């Protein structure tokens, strides 16, 4: 399993626009992708419902995980989205 630990920089947290962009990006990848708060239960990164329920706020860390062909690239893309104040 490959992981990226990243701090949420959007001032609204991983909600609204950042959440929608995150899910749209994750959904393009063929493999399973999960997102969790450190030590928390991983949820489906392709589900907007899961992301809203996760409620990651600005300044909080999340861990994004995936496996398989192309996982490095998709995790880099997702981490970049989370790390920008969009």
């Amino acid at each position, binding site marked *: 399993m490959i992981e990226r630990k990243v701090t949420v920089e959007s001032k*609204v947290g991983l909600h*609204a*626009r950042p*959440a*929608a*962009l995150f899910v*749209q990006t994750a959904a393009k990848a063929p493999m399973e992708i999960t997102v969790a708060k450190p030590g928390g239960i991983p949820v489906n990164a392709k*589900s*907007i*419902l899961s992301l*809203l*329920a996760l*409620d990651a706020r600005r300044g909080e860390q999340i861990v994004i995980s995936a496996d398989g062909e192309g996982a490095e690239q998709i995790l880099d893309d997702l981490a970049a989205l989370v790390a920008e104040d969009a």
Partner: protein
Amino acid sequence: MTRVLAPVRGRVVGLAGVPDPLFAQAMVGPGTAIDPVREPGEAVAPIDGRIVKLRPHCYVVLGAEGHHGILVYLGVDTVELKGTGFELLAAEGDRVVAGQPLIRWNPAEVAAGGRSPVCPVIALDAGIEALSDVAVPGDIECGGALFTWT
């Protein structure tokens, strides 16, 4: 199948009537929107279920079967109000029935502050083809039939 009720009284305008591309372009998901009457009122649960998220400006109710989550926003950019003018009438984790008041607010005040009080009602993780019987543009009562999610 989930029957989704109007969380507020007003006029159905569709997602195209939301002055925010995030909703107007259905980036969050399919659904519709209601331009609420400009008077103090209560926003209610659109379905039976459990409140998984409750913020002053938005909430998510997850249906009993666990996979139909409905997101309701109370106005555009109302997150900036940081809760001022919104009174929570329930709590995250609460089991609620459709029509149960969740937030007291005043769309007229939101509009007076220069923001749109239009309320998007979104089916989360749904494809557009999953929605049917979407209310046609026009007046709708709070608790009126808004759309069906199959």
